C-alpha cells in the first residue's frame, strides 16, 4: 500500500482519514463517486483515536438550536448507520442507545446542569428532547452502583454510545470495499483550482479532483483558506483513562464514564487549552480517577492499563463548521469535535447532499460566516 501515484485524477478528494473523513468518504462512495482519501501517517494528532465514543444529545446546542436538532437527528440515524456498516463489513460497532446520564457530585454541579438544560430548552421548542433531572435516590434506583457522593443526575433517553475504534475501522473497511482509494502518508501542501476542478499537491505528488472535501481536523485551519473557506479550529486537549476488562455492569453511558463492549471502563474527559501538547498529565488523571471512584466506588480496585491524551478539534463556539466555498465551487469543509455522534449524519445526509450539488439550507447556521458577523452597535 505504499503506492503513491505521481499524478492521477478522481471525482472527489477527501482530505483527512479519521472518523469524519472516513464517514464522508464512505457516504460519497455509497453515492457512486470515485473517491480518494489523502491522509497523514501513523503519527498524527488523530482525534479519532482518542475520543470517548458517545453518541450524545442531551447537553448539545446551547447557543445554537440547529446543533441540538442536528445531533438528535444523527442519534436517530445511528441505528441505520450501524446496520449499513454491519452489512458492508461484518463489523458490529456495538452501537446502543440505552439513555445516558450526567452524574453530579455536588449540589452546585447539579444546579449548574439544571440551569444549562433549562436555557437549552428555552431557546426553542425542544419539547421532543426528553430529559429528566434526577435526585440521588432516583439515580440510584436506575444505577444501583453509584456512590453516596452522587447528588443527582441528568438523564436523557436519547443518549447512547458505540465502540468508536470499531466504527473507525468499519468506516475504513466499508470504504475500501466500495473502492475508495485510501492513501496514507499524503500530507497536502497546497490546493489550487482551475475551471476543471482542484489540484492537490504534496510530497506524494499531485492529484486532480472535481470536488474537495476538507475533513482534516486541526489541519483544516491551514487548508481551508486555500479554497476560499475558513475553519478557525484550535486544539483542546482531553485525557482518557482505560481500566482492565471487567464484568459488564455499566449499561448506560455517562458523560465521563462508560464501559466498552470489550469490558474496559473508560474515564474522561478533561479539557485544557495547551496548544498541540499531548503529554499525559498525572494530576488530571488523578482528578478523573478520584471522581470516577466517587461516582462508582466499586471501580476503586480496578487497574488502569492505559491512558492517553488527544486533541479535540474546537471551533471558536464549539459547534461544527459545515461550509461550501463561494469563490471555489466544489470545495467543502467539514469539521467538528463530535465526529462519532455525527457520523450517521455525515454518511447518510451530508455526503449525499454534497454529491447532489451542495449543502442544504438547513445547514446554513453551521457556516463559518457566523464568526464574521459584525458586532451589533
Amino acid at each position, binding site marked *: 500500500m505504499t503506492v503513491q501515484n505521481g499524478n492521477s485524477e478522481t471525482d472527489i478528494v477527501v482530505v483527512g482519514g479519521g472518523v469524519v473523513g472516513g464517514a464522508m468518504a464512505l457516504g460519497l462512495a455509497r453515492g457512486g463517486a470515485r473517491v480518494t482519501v489523502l491522509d497523514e501517517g501513523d503519527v498524527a494528532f488523530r482525534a479519532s483515536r482518542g475520543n470517548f465514543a458517545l453518541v450524545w444529545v442531551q447537553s448539545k446546542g446551547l447557543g445554537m438550536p440547529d446543533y441540538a436538532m442536528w445531533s438528535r437527528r444523527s442519534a436517530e440515524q445511528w441505528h441505520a448507520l450501524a446496520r449499513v456498516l454491519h452489512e458492508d463489513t461484518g463489523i458490529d460497532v456495538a452501537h446502543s442507545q440505552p439513555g445516558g446520564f450526567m452524574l453530579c457530585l455536588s449540589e452546585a454541579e447539579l444546579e449548574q446542569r439544571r440551569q444549562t438544560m433549562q436555557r437549552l430548552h428555552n431557546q426553542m421548542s425542544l419539547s421532543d428532547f426528553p430529559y429528566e433531572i434526577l435526585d440521588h435516590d432516583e439515580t440510584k434506583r436506575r444505577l444501583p452502583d453509584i456512590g453516596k457522593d452522587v447528588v443527582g443526575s441528568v438523564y436523557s433517553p436519547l443518549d447512547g454510545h458505540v465502540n468508536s475504534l470499531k466504527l473507525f475501522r468499519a468506516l475504513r473497511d466499508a470504504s475500501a470495499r466500495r473502492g475508495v482509494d485510501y492513501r496514507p502518508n499524503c500530507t497536502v501542501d497546497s490546493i489550487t483550482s482551475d475551471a476543471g476542478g482542484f489540484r492537490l499537491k504534496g510530497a506524494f505528488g499531485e492529484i486532480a479532483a472535481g470536488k474537495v472535501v476538507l475533513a482534516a481536523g486541526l489541519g483544516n485551519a491551514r487548508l481551508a483558506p486555500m479554497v476560499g473557506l475558513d475553519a478557525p479550529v484550535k486544539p483542546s486537549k482531553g485525557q482518557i483513562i482505560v481500566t*482492565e*476488562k*471487567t*464484568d459488564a455492569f455499566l449499561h448506560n453511558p455517562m458523560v465521563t464514564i462508560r464501559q466498552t463492549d470489550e469490558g474496559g471502563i473508560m474515564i474522561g474527559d478533561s479539557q485544557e487549552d495547551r496548544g498541540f501538547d499531548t503529554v499525559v498529565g498525572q494530576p488530571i488523571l488523578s482528578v478523573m480517577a478520584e471522581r470516577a471512584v466517587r461516582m462508582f466506588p466499586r471501580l*476503586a*480496585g480496578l*487497574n488502569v492499563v492505559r491512558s492517553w491524551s488527544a486533541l479535540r478539534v474546537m471551533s471558536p463556539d464549539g459547534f461544527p463548521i459545515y461550509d461550501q466555498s463561494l469563490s471555489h465551487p466544489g470545495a467543502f469543509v467539514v469539521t467538528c469535535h463530535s465526529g462519532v455522534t455525527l457520523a450517521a449524519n455525515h454518511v447518510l445526509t451530508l455526503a449525499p447532499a454534497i454529491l447532489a450539488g451542495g449543502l442544504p439550507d438547513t445547514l446554513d447556521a453551521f457556516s463559518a460566516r457566523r464568526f464574521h458577523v459584525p458586532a451589533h452597535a
Partner: protein
Amino acid sequence: MFRLMHEAKPAEALGFTFDGRALTARAGDTVAAALLANGIQACRQTPVSGADRGPYCMMGVCFECLVVIDGVGNRQGCLVPLREGMRIETQAGRRHPDGG
C-alpha cells in the same frame, strides 16, 4: 511441570490454597513459582477467548500469570512473594469489578 532440584537450600514451607486446594511451597517463592512447583500450569483464562494461559516470562513483562490473590484479581503472580495462608484463585476471564 516443575520440581525442586536436588541439593536446594532448605526453606520454610508456607501453606496456601489454590482454588480451594491446600498446597505448600517454599518461603522465597513468588506466587507464580509456587504454582509451577505444585504442577499447576494454567492459572487463568483469557478475557477474550477464554483460553487457558500460564506463566510465560516470570519477570513481570507478559501478564500471563495473572491470578486472584486474597480476593484481588489480575495480580501478577510472578512479582508477588508467597505468604503463609494466601488464598490464590484462577483468574477466570474478566476481572470482577470489586474483587477477583
